[in-house]
């Protein structure tokens, strides 16, 4: 069952201060309404992962990692690799996160990222068959929220995209007789084929104002959210409205505009962060 | 510029715009001002009362749960026995509390078993003494006629239809009692208690109440119900086919 959440109580004085600033086009941390916090991306953060990225967005910290395994393809796509996305809001990240299986928020986040990667065919899964119809690469993308200070979706999307960009496919041995595949993780056969970059821009409605990248206090004050997936070509590749309130058609229009304006900066940040690893593997970071 | 978009007694549905403009007094939580409009939020009948200065808009809901109000008469069923009080189901989203001291009319000695006075399943007639948003409703039986109910028949209707069973200035209820010779107590929570002289009249009274419940949204209801009762009485041989008055 999905249940109306208990919203964190923001002292009225603070709420009013935030709203009064928004009315003047400002934020509590001096940003403009359409401005992101400082983004730090560390690529290849976890040595044992095939690909990984740590992202710090303001004080929000997340870690995404990719492990590759050999497995069976889906019956309806026998020659394609398989992507599986999971997200976990670990209890260390916020007093409001509890141990246990992912709740609806973590599941929603993982599914938004999954769809954002799947629909625009970000990963060229058709190049990931090992033995067509029998053995393909399974891409496990796991995302952990380490510290929650707002805008988790965008932070997790940045980390996911960068982790995938930096993922190396391990070398394998295929036994010709048995068809058995052995992974040799100490060697690599190249980078995960990526066709295009995507990012999300989540737009939050606070009072009658639309802002991007809220911190936790601003997020607690917001009544609705629209997460917009944008490709490097400026296409819309996913949408998800959430929150207790509505959006008007005009607000949606404005949100799309905010997303299209902000996406190039975020995509550049991902590209920059993955540049070294992709250059080392002899592939430019423009994509596949 | 203010304008009314429906007539008195019009049936409305959630989202229907009742009026535009701000020169209206809204006398119900079921009408909501959204921007320049007055919007219906439940299925119900609009009431419009105009006087020289204001136009007062109301809405009688046709569906919905019973929500307690201080002063309401309710018929409750004891569902739990505590140390110093009973818990009573009144068909509201909250159970009601009846304190032993209120029921007994004197300070209560906790060494006594409360079940001696009221046990689980017992029916009580009570009034809502206190209710605010923070605490469960508190009942009182400290008025004449209130307390444990030991005889009669209990029926339930939708709480939203109670106003029609009572009628304007109790017109429907008086007619029902007069025509069926039943004593009828209508709880605001949609529970109704009948004490009737014989099973035939009891059956007629119940049929009539159920008919009011079904047809609560229609007009000319009191007359139709009266005719219905007379027909039923003739059918059951309680009166001759000559007319309704002067029942013997």
């Amino acid at each position: 069952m999905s249940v109306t959440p208990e919203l964190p109580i923001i002292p009225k004085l603070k709420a009013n201060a935030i709203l009064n600033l928004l009315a003047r086009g400002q934020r509590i941390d001096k940003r403009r309404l359409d401005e992101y916090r400082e983004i730090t991306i560390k690529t290849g953060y976890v040595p044992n992962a095939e690909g990984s990225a740590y992202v710090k967005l303001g004080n929000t910290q997340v870690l995404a990692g990719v492990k590759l395994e050999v497995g069976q393809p889906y019956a309806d796509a026998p020659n394609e690799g398989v992507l599986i996305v999971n997200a976990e809001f670990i209890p260390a990240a916020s007093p409001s996160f509890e141990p246990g299986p992912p709740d609806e928020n973590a599941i929603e986040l993982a599914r938004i990222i999954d769809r954002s990667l799947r629909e625009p065919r970000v990963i060229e899964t058709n190049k990931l068959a090992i033995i067509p119809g029998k053995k393909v690469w399974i891409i496990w993308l796991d995302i952990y929220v380490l510290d929650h200070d707002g805008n988790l979706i965008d932070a997790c999307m940045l980390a996911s995209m960068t982790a995938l960009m930096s993922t190396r496919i391990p070398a394998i041995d295929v036994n010709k007789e048995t068809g058995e595949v052995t992974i040799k993780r100490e060697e690599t056969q190249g980078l995960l084929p990526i066709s295009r970059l995507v990012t999300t821009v989540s737009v939050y409605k606070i009072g009658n104002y639309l802002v991007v990248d809220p911190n936790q206090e601003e997020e607690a004050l917001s009544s609705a959210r629209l997460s917009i997936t944008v490709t490097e070509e400026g296409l819309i590749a996913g949408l998800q409205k959430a929150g207790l309130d509505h959006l008007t058609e005009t607000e949606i229009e404005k949100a799309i505009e905010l997303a299209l304006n902000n996406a190039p900066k975020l995509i550049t940040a991902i590209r920059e962060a993955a540049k070294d690893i992709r250059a080392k593997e002899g592939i430019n970071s423009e994509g596949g | 510029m203010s304008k009314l978009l429906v007539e008195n007694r019009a049936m409305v549905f959630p989202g229907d715009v009742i009026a535009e403009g701000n020169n209206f007094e809204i006398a119900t939580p079921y009408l909501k001002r959204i921007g320049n409009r007055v919007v219906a939020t439940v299925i119900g009948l609009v009431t419009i009362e105009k006087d020289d200065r204001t136009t007062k808009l109301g809405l009688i809901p046709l569906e919905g749960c019973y929500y307690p109000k201080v002063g309401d008469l309710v018929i409750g069923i004891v569902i739990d026995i505590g140390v110093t009080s009973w818990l009573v189901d009144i068909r509201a989203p909250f159970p009601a509390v009846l304190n032993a001291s209120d029921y007994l009319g004197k300070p209560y000695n906790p060494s006594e078993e409360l079940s001696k006075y009221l046990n689980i399943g017992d029916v009580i007639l009570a009034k809502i003494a206190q209710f605010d948003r923070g605490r469960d409703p508190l009942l009182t039986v400290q008025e004449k006629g209130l307390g444990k109910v030991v005889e009669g028949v209990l029926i339930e209707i939708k709480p939203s239809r109670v106003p029609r069973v009572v009628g304007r200035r109790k017109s429907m209820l008086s007619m029902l009692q007069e025509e069926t010779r039943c004593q009828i107590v209508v709880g605001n929570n949609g529970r109704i208690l009948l004490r009737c002289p014989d099973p035939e009249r009891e059956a007629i009274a119940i049929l009539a109440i159920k008919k009011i419940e079904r047809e609560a949204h229609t007009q000319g209801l009191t007359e139709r119900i009266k005719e219905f009762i007379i027909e039923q009485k003739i059918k059951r041989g309680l009166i001759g086919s000559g007319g309704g008055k002067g029942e013997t």
Partner: protein
Amino acid sequence: MGVAAEKEKPKLIDEKGLRVDGRRPDELRPIDMEVGVLKNADGSALVKYGNTWVLAAVYGPREAVPKHMTLPDRAVLRCRYRMLSFSTHERKSPAPSRREIELSKVIREALEPAVLTELYPRTTIDIFIEVLNAHGGTRTAGVTAAALALADAGIPMRDLVAGVAVGKVDGIIVLDINENEDMYGEADMPVAAMPGLGRITLLQLNGVLTPEEFRVALKLALQGIKRIYDMQKEVLRHKYAVVEE
């Protein structure tokens, strides 16, 4: 969509510009609605968009169990969207899937903006949505059914909420996509709104659209929603039009 699109994708729009089930791009499937279909529930509705059949039941406002799951200033909405095990081609496991968990949230958030929860603090309003037969657009049919069930239960709402999914198939933006169009089309965009107030309460996109296509798709969805909304009002009115003797 997705991987399946690679394989044996059928033609979704024919030479005459008609869809696999013969509809024009801006045409809804045959829609049928019924209110008050369950005796025990405080409110209920059965809604059919073609072969997508969804039952919704509402209980409440009622006492919250457990009690600590209440809010001091408003009612709590609890929503469960579920597909019956035999509602799909392959049997669906009765255990809640990640998709059902997400959609329960998305549907709850489509209804929250409508319900005047502030009138009933410390209570819960339960909404159960059961997909009886799935053929595309189950979440939006579920929202439409749930709004009718809420109205039937007498729960105050700012407006009814109605939903429909639009999509892009063979390059054309179409209204009320069915299962085949969902599976093989380029995009699927479920939308729900309170049409009387012009407020959008559910918006998802699964697929890729240009910003211009998105605008066209949203407009088309809102037109479809308005028509479904008129049907909702009509079916409610009908319930009170006849008085059985």
